[in-house]
């Protein structure tokens, strides 16, 4: 296995008395799709936000492509973000902009690409997520949930990033649309040769898109293995989660 592209080493993050991450160790290599499972409140989103530099960890290290970026700021942070794509749970499309302006946002605002050229590139990328040029001039609010997710996916991959984060990519979608999103994620990640980290609690999605699966519980990674081993993990917590049982070592958060 090649050297990891992104590594989190013993990352700790608390909000007051709420210890969300209690020492997370995880890494992902190029060409690998890692899915992190975890229940509500297990710290999945916080883990993603610290990895992206949207939150600063209280302790521990974040290493991207061999460089310590834990407290990176300014240019170093921008260079890192230019190589990372992120699909937000809610899509997080800018509702004041048209669809193509959303997709081409980084090209126009950070890379200095001319608008006409950026628009062409956006339409080309929209095609990759199976959206026709007719949606380019619509506003995000005019699209269905599944279409918004696809636009957000196009925005995340337009610059061919080395690493893509997916925050609950299938949440809130019907099973058929969810599966279509899974296919798109697989296609695009394989086409890019990128590393991917997805967080989800959707087991069908995890089985489909993961090369490896890890389980986050109470702020720590408690299990990690190849996706094919998920049903033979030998870990009670993982078994309970995979089979969706209310009773077991994990208490449901009500």
């Amino acid at each position: 296995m090649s050297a990891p592209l992104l590594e989190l080493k013993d990352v700790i993050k608390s909000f007051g008395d709420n210890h969300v991450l209690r020492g997370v160790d995880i890494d992902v290599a190029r060409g690998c799709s890692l899915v992190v499972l975890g229940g509500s409140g297990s710290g999945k989103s916080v883990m993603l936000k610290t990895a992206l530099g949207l939150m600063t960890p209280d302790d521990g290290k974040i290493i991207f492509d061999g460089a310590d970026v834990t407290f990176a700021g300014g240019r170093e942070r921008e260079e890192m973000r230019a190589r990372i794509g992120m699909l937000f749970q809610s899509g997080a499309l800018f509702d004041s902009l048209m669809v193509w302006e959303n997709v081409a946002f980084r090209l126009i605002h950070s890379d200095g690409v001319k608008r006409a050229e950026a628009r062409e590139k956006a339409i080309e990328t929209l095609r990759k997520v199976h959206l026709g040029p007719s949606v380019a001039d619509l506003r995000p609010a005019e699209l269905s949930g599944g279409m918004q997710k696809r636009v957000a996916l196009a925005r995340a991959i337009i610059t061919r990033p080395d690493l893509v984060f997916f925050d609950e990519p299938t949440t809130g979608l019907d099973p058929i649309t969810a599966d279509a999103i899974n296919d798109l994620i697989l296609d695009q990640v394989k086409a890019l040769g990128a590393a991917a980290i997805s967080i989800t609690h959707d087991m069908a999605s995890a089985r489909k898109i993961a090369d490896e699966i890890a389980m986050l519980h109470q702020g720590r990674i408690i299990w990690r293995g190849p996706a094919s081993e998920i049903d033979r993990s030998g870990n009670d917590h993982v078994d309970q989660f995979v089979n969706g049982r209310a009773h077991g070592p994990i208490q449901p958060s009500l």
Partner: protein
Amino acid sequence: MSEHSRTDRDDSGVSVPNPLRWIGVSALGLFAEVGRVARFSGGVIGAALSPPWYPGEVFRQIGRIGFYSLPVVGLSSIFIGAALALNIYTGGSRYGAEQFVPNIVVLGITRELGAVITGLMLAGRVSAGISAEIGAMRVTEQIDALKTLSASPERYLYAPRLIAALVTLPILVALSDIIGVMGGWLVSVQALGFDSTVYLRNTVDFVTWEDITAGLIKAVVFGAVIALMGCFHGDRSKAGATGVGRAATLSMVSAAVLVLALNYVMSTLFTEIGL
């Protein structure tokens, strides 16, 4: 919000109120809040003063903050000018000084009311609008998305709103001055028996550039307050509809109070320096 309790427990476990502690905690909280506002404002002003700028965003905000505020500013100014003229007439007539209506109307409008009315109306319309919009962007992760796309919210969202408010407020206040004076003129000529030409002649002869400048300087300061309060409270918005609603309320209230307080401070200052 506060992590500190307002009461202390003594050894017996009975909770006793401690007013000194409460005063101390409140004072520290106030200083911390002022510090946060100052730090946030410094960041936004820094972003507004240095490239890259987003001219498209600035123009869009000028339209939203300036152009669409014209009806509300115009309407409130004409009524305030008219009411002012009536009151000055009533008061002046007790001393046989009715002829000073045009002079005092134009002085009151240009130095105080044009700027204060515009500032207050925009604290409601613009400051609350900005914080609701930014708050909604914060809770739908659009602010995080901006950061991951290498666009800083200070530069892309906050600085254009600040620049737009600084540019449009003086224009709106200048219009408010004119419309306010016209409101006074209208009621004086129609209801109080003033001669139209004499009224306008008295107004133009009496008003000085210093009166107008004083109002416009206030306008610039109010513009900064309105944009920064909107952005600050929106940026700190908590999740959910209540969070966004609360941010809008806080920004409107804090902008309005600051407009009135700073208006007094600036009026005092202008009197001191003879402006």
